[in-house]
């Protein structure tokens, strides 16, 4: 991982990363409703990191210490079960993960690995929490966004897998938590 390649391209031109970071964070659903001045601070505290192909952005079982937005490149989401490693899906530019890890101590359930050289915008948990301590009003908003996401996700899942869900009722109901 490095903040070199793409950054150097940006540095040598007129472009300044900060405004782009701000735009990205403003459009993330998890920060919906967070005042612009606070998103500005979060964008400022974010940094660009590069990953070589095959390098893990996060490992299954490791604490989620940051949220990640893929700027360019492809990543695969892998779930290890015993000796098997199942590739669950592949995502590219614009993929965001790790938002829940900002809010509480959690360990990753998946390994996210770069398939191609990948550049990401990352925001560390400690930096996020320090900002949230200073602007506590943002936490209920972010929590509201998370709850909304959970409901929307489960509703879509139930609609798409209605029959399967009916037979596996005992495992459903995340939104009932």
């Amino acid at each position, binding site marked *: *991982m490095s*903040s070199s390649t793409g950054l150097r391209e940006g540095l040598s031109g007129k472009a300044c*990363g900060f405004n782009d970071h701000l735009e990205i964070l403003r459009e993330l659903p998890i920060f919906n409703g967070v005042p612009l001045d606070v998103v500005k601070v979060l964008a400022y505290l974010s940094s660009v990191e590069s990953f070589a192909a095959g390098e893990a952005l996060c490992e299954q079982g490791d604490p989620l210490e940051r949220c990640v937005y893929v700027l360019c490149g492809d990543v695969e989401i892998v779930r290890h079960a015993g000796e098997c490693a199942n590739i669950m899906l592949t995502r590219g530019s614009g993929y965001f993960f790790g938002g829940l890890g900002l809010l509480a101590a959690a360990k990753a359930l998946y390994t996210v690995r770069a398939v191609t050289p990948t550049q990401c915008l990352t925001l560390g948990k400690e930096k996020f929490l320090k900002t949230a301590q200073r602007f506590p009003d943002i936490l209920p908003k972010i929590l509201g966004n998370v709850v909304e996401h959970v409901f929307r996700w489960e509703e879509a899942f139930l609609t798409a897998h209605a029959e399967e869900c009916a037979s596996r009722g005992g495992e459903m109901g995340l939104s009932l938590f």
Partner: protein
Amino acid sequence: MKLRPDIPDALYKRSLFSWVWTSNLKLQGILLIIIVVTVAVRVLPLEMQKKIINEAIALKRVDLLLTYCGYYLACVVSASGLKLAINALQNYIGQESLTDLRKQLYAHILKLPMSFFRQASPGMVVTSLVTEVANTGEFVGQAIAVPVTNLLTLLAFAAYLFYLNPLMAVISMALYPIAIIVIPALQKRANAANKQRVDTGRKLSTLIGETISGIHEIHGNASFRLENDRFGVMADKLFKVRVIWNLYKFAIKVSNNFFQNLGPFVLFLVGGYLAINGRFDLGALVAFLSANEKLYDPWKELMDFYQTYQDASVSYERIMEYFQGDPEFTAEPADPRPALALTGALAAKDLVLEVPGGIQLLKGVSLDIAPGELVALVGFSGSGKSTLALCLCQILKYNAGKATFDGNDIDALPKSDIADNMGIVSQHPFIFEGSIKDNLLYSINARRAAHNLTGDDQLPSLDEIIAVVQQVGLFADILRFALNSVFKEGRKENLVKKVVRVREAYHAGHAESLADWVEFFDPTQYLYYSTVAENIIFGTPGRDDLTPENLPANPFFVSFLHDAGLKMLLVQTGAELTARTVDILKDVPSPDSTFFEQTPITMDEFDTYRELAGRLGRVRLHKLSPEDERLLLTLALRFTPGRHTIVGLSHILEGLLLQGRAMFAERVTADMPGAVTFFRRDDYLYSMTVMDNILFGRLKTTSPKFIDQIQKTIVSLLIEEDMLERVLEIGLDFQVGSMGDRLSGGQRQKVALARAFLKEPPVLILDEATAALDNASQTRIQNLLENKWRGRSTVIAVVHRLDTIKNYDKVAVMKAGRIVEVGSYTALMEKKGMLYELVYGTAGRA
């Protein structure tokens, strides 16, 4: 100092006056003697005044005039000297008592039960200890000196007045009882008005806050007139209250002056009449007037002292009320004895912990743990597993049942025995400001302090510390801290030579693989991860005025920047950095150092640059003051494009800076040869970190994984040069920052684990102590517990991740404050009870 019998042992039961009795009574005695002398010295000039007029002037005797004036002068000088001595003693006694109170209060607070700290706000504790107790110190310092001095002075002056003329003395004194009635009455009303002012002010603040928060609604309804009316009513009320409050304040002031000025009027009227009729001599009248005037000073000082007493009483009562409470456990054994050496057998029998409100967190828990056993406490959230662990290590006090440690009732054991025999690691361990080493040795140093050990007694050796650091996986972090340190020129010469040798060996083997991750010190390339100043100088300055912090004020350097066409461009860059940083951080309340990692402005400088940003909006760059220009240049010279991404580095500036580098080298070589040692592969670069020196470049990545890879290769070279231990020692001195904020969550937890392991206690309590660790570190600690500590220490681990408990000797499953299952992992899983449900969920059980 031994407390008097009438002073209770419990700090919060002590009266304010008790601190006067426990103050330095020897000094208080000396103070009293000085006061008596001072009073006599104060009265004597009045008699001299009388004698100068009646004897020296009336009889035209110059010799008497000189004699009496001499006495007068001696009295005035002595009175001033003695006053100074009184103040000095008063101050010393007060501050000594204040320190004594602070120390005792701090000791008391530390021993208060956990329930107090759950409710107490740290801010209140800080304010009480730092600010509010100051009133008490002031009072204790004044408690004897001020009332005695002023009462004695008043009495002495009154006696002297009676000696001169009893009738006039009575007339002049008659005003004071009136003042005693009038002024306190006014003060009482002023206080009431002040309270009303504060209440009204608060209501007004609430109204304003509400308005600002609901501004959307106000704009939406255009309710400007309505809101203005609401505000107007409140503002008018505040106006009336403030007028009344100020009137009472003025009335008090006027009354004081009135009574003070009325005195001479009565004296002139009656005294003048008596003097005209030959019943009172002129000298006595002058002395009378002087004495009457001087009566006011002790009177005023007594009034002020009363206020000090009132303030101190209020603060003191509030502090003692707040910190009311007794420790739940004794700190040390009643009779001094060596600490108990316990084996680690723990038992709980029907343990109950009830919190206010009748809620039971533990509902009769029983558990037996043999010495050296590895026990996991698992369960659902709120099941009481942490509570049980905390009861066993005396952090929490149980209400019923019994818990024993080697047969000793845990409730009755002194804290010192528990601390000597237990190591505790919590989920969110606290790290104190200081070095890593200070924190690693915290438990050991606490034990050493408790047993009055000095020197190296019971201190682990460096090898032992390094061994534990390796066991908990902190080795790489400490090595990183060491490699990031900067050596001062002339120091660690031996290490410096070795670092240069390591550099050569490292580059021979790894230079190619580093190219993508390291920005080498190449004179033809711009260095994005170095500051602008480092890019220009490209070497180690040998003179103070060429060090980065002094460059903006160095005329030689500033003139060079001008000639190189860089000055205005850098000032412009500084202005951009200022504007951008201030815009982002201006509304962040109390930003700490984290918020300044991505800007060249430091935390301490932020206010200066915030003001400068304001000026930049009004003044054009070329019209800025030299000081503002210097501030902007300072920022620009610190600008590191790879880190400070809030502003971009333009092609033009980059090109000019590269040309400037060459031009600067030429100019320095010509004008001040030897002032800069330019970067060469054979030299140690004193302005750079050890890592920069080894790499002969700067890392472009912050990835711990990549840095670990580099470090692993460096370690073998450090071992070859026999310098690993010395380097680690430097890393152990790394300052962790306030509350360890320069460490990550994982590093903090590793430090806490190492702290407990270094102590080698018979019992280790780990309360989700590996929760913040990555998989590899968690596995390392797990192996350590299973291989090193099993059988050697009893380990009680509150565990959340159930895949780590398979090899524990005993697993206790808790639910709703009760242990529902105890046994080995295999037995419990075969039973398919609660542990099985925890592992596989309710679906798995079904």
